[in-house]
């Protein structure tokens, strides 16, 4: 897998990171080198190992579905870059083209 600047731009878009051209230029060779190392996993003998490493969740460990205390809305909204009347405020987005 050749990691070039085009691929870095594409991944950055998926990750919602607007990288500068300078950053793309710097990161592409770094990722190439990292993946040259990481690609060793392709050669590993893993036999029939299951990709799900965690033990299955013990259902008894889950709490009862009771409503508990919740955070005080003011203490949460205080951290918001913009809020109004109990809502987070964001720029308009209905007329945006969204690529996925």
């Amino acid at each position, binding site marked *: *897998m050749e*990691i070039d600047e085009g*691929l*870095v731009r594409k*991944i*950055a*878009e*998926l*990750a*919602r*990171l*607007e*990288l*500068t051209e300078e*950053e793309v230029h710097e*990161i592409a060779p*770094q*990722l190439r*080198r*990292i*993946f040259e*190392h*990481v*690609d*060793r*996993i*392709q050669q*590993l*003998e*893993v*036999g029939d*190992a*299951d*990709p*799900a*490493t*965690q033990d299955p*969740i013990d259902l008894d*460990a*889950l*709490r009862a579905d009771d409503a508990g205390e919740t*955070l*005080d809305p003011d*203490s*949460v909204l*205080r*951290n*918001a*870059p*913009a809020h109004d009347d109990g809502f*987070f405020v*964001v*720029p*308009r*987005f209905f007329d*945006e083209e*969204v690529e996925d």
Partner: protein
Amino acid sequence: MEGLTNPLDLPVAEMAARVRNIDDPLTASELVETSLLRIEAIDPALHAFLRTTPELAREQARVVDARVEAGEDPGPLAGVPLGVKDNIAVEGVPLTCASKILGNYVPPTGATSVRRAVDAGACIVGKTNLDEFGMGSSTENSAFGPTRNPYDLERVPGGSSGGSAAAVAAGMVPLALGSDTGGSIRQPAALSGIVGMKPTYGRVSRNGLVAFASSLDQVGPMARSAADARILLGAIQGTDPADATTRDLPAVTGSGAAELAGLRIGRVEEFSLAGVAGGEPMEAAMGDVHKALEEAGAESVELSIPLVKSSIPIYYIVAPAEASSNLARYDGVRYGHRTSDAGALQALYAKTRDEGFGAEVKRRILIGTFALSAGYADAYYKRAMAARSALRRGFERAFERCDVIVSATTPTPAFLLGEKVDDPLAMYLCDILTVASNLAGIPVMNVPAGQTEDGLPVGMQLWGPAGSEARLFDVAEALAETTGHAYRAPVIPAGGDA
């Protein structure tokens, strides 16, 4: 205090016992003031703390002292000053993760681990520096500047819990909380000459720890001795309704040294540093330790876990994959930094994230996003997870043949500031001896194993099967008695002692 031991330098059990004793003049308030004075005197040279919390610490100390006055027992950490890594939330105290993206975020609630430490009498004196979001091995990835190694100010303290390590090593606090996703407690503990433990996954609640890689992250104690670390872990351990991954494990209690005679000590071939550049002092120290163990009657068991050799590639898929997902929440909408330069929502997300995250965090988000993307997830993420399962089984089989595995913690002693900062892969390879334990979910602690000729600390790791922390502490205490290796206070050039 001339000529007397400063109470801040006492073993934690003794420090707390004196505070708990109404007839002893030592108070929590005195300990807190001493700690704050030391931070003021020493920390300008080290930058272990991102902020101190004097008002909070003084209030917590007043509560402890009042409880003693009232004949109550404030707990096993009574009056003990505590540093908290700044990716662990303390209610009402700004939380940065050493990142610009959190802006002026103030957590509305605190971490379970922090609350439990405070309930046991600890007093929080400050938040310690780290690599941004825990991503790094030198604390140079902090958006607020690096921390320096107390044994050599030109060198790194390790990372990502480098602030907590330096704070404890320099004697500014006797105890600190760190977090460990791939070695972030043990590697800085090793480079800074102290004790640090990554507990079994699920022993300590992650509630209030800012998520990096949720299946690997664990909060743990950093201290000058195994006995001190044991007391802190004892206070913070246990299941928590707020973290469904906490498990009911045999409790860490008590104290004492293990009988080394007859103990089966595993030596894993793949942990050997023979031939690794700069690894000679670590190999020499490990040789000495194994010899001392054999002389004490322990049995040496040669083992091989071939997948250990691949733990870095496995880890650098799994951890960034989880990080890319966890860090999606920083989008400039609900908290933290928001770009001032966006007209529309998609641009707001992308610009906010570009402005707020540092270079290493961006790299890991990109690695993880790629490893999880359509067409590549099977080749990378699923394959890495299968290898992780196999690695975990490898350790389970190893612990059928031995009680404890002993290895070095780092491939080299503390490196110079700036030495690896432009070479991400070289920095990742610092974690070569630590990441396997997070992948396997097992407890591992770093303990001092001597010093290099230049006076730099050397650390070693004690590995045990899930739930075996109490035994690891027992072995660590016995080893310290046998080898004489222990924390040694550094001489810090700038500033005086409080």
